[in-house]
């Protein structure tokens, strides 16, 4: 019997050892584990970073902030660098998940990121201690001019029976509720149960008209003329227009979400110095330009913007809108665990309807 247990123990030990060895391969200067949005940088820049620094990049992607958070929280993978949005950064700060950045290691960030973006960041990172802006933009409506006759300027078009089965909605809680709340003239950071109920009912009412709830697929479906109207991030507008000139992007008059996605470093980052080197590298003007040209999301990197050769794009109203001329713009706030739960519950009710 003793022998039996010894054998069993031996097997378990060897199995644990096997599990522990995960990804051990790394560059001569160690590695950095990056967790970023899908299609959110030019892969070439990673290769360049690896060649210049000898740091191996382990790269992983997420689809929404809500998918990213539990993964980081569970701790099954120790990510170093993450690129969450404003409200999620606020949530991570509130839950003590982020490390303060050492800006002595981030000279490119200090030099190249425009002042206005640092100020904007204070809404979620009050002392600019934790985050370095990477991309920013708005959320709006992308529509196909050949399928939509009238000019579009309001979220209410997403409730227009004429476009039944021709509407693409965002498949993430906050973005969907933003539309529902804004339509009814409420703040998109509302925690008022009555207002949220109204927004929920609006979304349920809209559901029969919706072709599909998607995230990044909006892009391909709009290019392929699959739908007439889609809710989309401004950064996709330039790319989709290039592929399909019939598409047009608007910011609805009821107002919308102005967001910033920023680089942050996790509290338990195993490779903090490498992580800072990575963020700094991403802020270098030539690299930021490469990324801008690849993903076409607005860059807060002023030095990189100066390098854009195409004047139409450098002064494009879509890529770099003058936010002052739009009313009711807001940025998402972290609303606390109870409100999070309420949103999730209501969203589930919409989805299961």
């Amino acid at each position, binding site marked *: 019997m003793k022998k039996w247990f010894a054998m069993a123990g031996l097997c378990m030990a060897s199995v644990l050892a096997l599990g522990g060895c995960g990804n051990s391969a790394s560059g001569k200067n160690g590695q950095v584990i990056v967790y970023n949005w899908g299609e959110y940088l030019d892969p070439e820049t990673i290769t360049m970073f690896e060649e210049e620094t000898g740091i191996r990049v382990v790269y992983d992607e997420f689809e929404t902030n809500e998918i990213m958070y539990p993964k980081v929280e*569970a701790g099954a993978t120790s990510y170093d660098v993450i690129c969450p949005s404003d409200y999620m950064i606020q949530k991570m700060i509130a839950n003590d998940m982020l490390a303060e950045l050492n800006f002595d290691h981030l000279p490119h960030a200090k030099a190249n990121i425009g002042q206005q973006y640092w100020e904007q960041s204070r809404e979620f990172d009050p002392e600019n201690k934790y985050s370095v802006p990477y991309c920013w933009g708005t959320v709006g409506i992308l529509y196909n001019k050949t399928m939509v006759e009238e000019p579009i300027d309001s979220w209410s078009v997403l409730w227009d029976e004429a476009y039944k089965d021709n509407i693409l909605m965002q498949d993430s809680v906050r973005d969907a509720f933003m539309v529902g709340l804004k339509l009814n003239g409420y703040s998109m950071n509302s925690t008022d149960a009555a207002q949220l109920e109204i927004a929920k009912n609006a979304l349920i009412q809209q559901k029969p008209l919706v072709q599909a709830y998607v995230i*990044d697929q909006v892009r391909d479906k709009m290019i392929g003329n699959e739908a007439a109207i889609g809710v989309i991030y401004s950064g996709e507008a330039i790319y989709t227009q290039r592929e399909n000139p019939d598409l047009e992007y608007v910011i609805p008059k009821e107002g919308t979400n102005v967001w910033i996605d920023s680089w942050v470093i996790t509290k338990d980052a195993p490779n903090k110095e490498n992580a800072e080197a990575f963020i700094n590298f991403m802020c270098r003007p030539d690299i930021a330009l490469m990324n801008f040209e690849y993903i076409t999301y607005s860059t807060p990197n002023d030095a990189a913007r100066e390098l854009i050769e195409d004047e139409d794009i450098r002064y494009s109203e879509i890529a770099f809108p003058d936010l002052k001329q739009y009313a009711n713009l807001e940025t998402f706030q972290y609303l606390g665990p109870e409100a999070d739960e309420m949103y999730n519950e209501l969203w589930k009710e919409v989805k299961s309807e």
Partner: protein
Amino acid sequence: MIRTTVKKIYMALIFIFLYAPIGTLIVLSFNASRTRAKWGGFTLKWYTALLENREIMQALWNTLLIALLSSLTAVVIGTVACIAIQGMSRQKRAIFMGITNIPMLNADIVTGISLMLLFISLGLKFGLGTILLAHITFNIPYVILSVMPRIKQLNPSIYEAALDLGATPLRAFFQVVLPDLLPGILSGFLMAFTMSLDDFIITHFTKGAGVDTLSTKIYTEVKKGIKPEMYALSTLIFVTVLILLMLVNRTPEEKRIPDK
């Protein structure tokens, strides 16, 4: 005559049903346009781009490595387990077989979640190792399922005769027992390999950063737009397997790997 025609039509319809999507994928691999919504003319560029795509090649390598290692390990553990189970009392055997069948009968999503909870509570770092452990776990039942019937057919006196003739138990096993089990082991291995290759759900819950199999890679790409290189890769895999199957089928009836 009418009966055979009806049969043939029926087979053809099923065949079209099963192969229409595959045909679509193959056609898409030659589409010059980046999005699958538009036909941009014939091209072979995705096949050359594929070779330079580090991420996809890495995912392919991971997939094959995991499938190979997990099915090999499952074969070893499973075969030994079969022999052990065969020697057990009726009651004990029933319990063992019951537990063995759980991963096969249970929903993939529950198996995936349960393993994820286990790995997190053990503090394991998610990566190739955790995927491998998960795959071995769901592969073992397939091996046992194929080897068990062979073991039942074994004549125990042959093994004992070998011992009586002076062979060590190990030698007796490798020279007398194993050859009889081999067909079962091989088909178990193939089944495990295929299952591992096609698995998405369990890998989805047990994978870590930057370690992707083709399945999980495709899942992330499905959402942000599949890279056409992926179609090219699938086409290549498909054609390779097709050719392999044809070659296997040309060998004489008896030698072929039995399908259990």
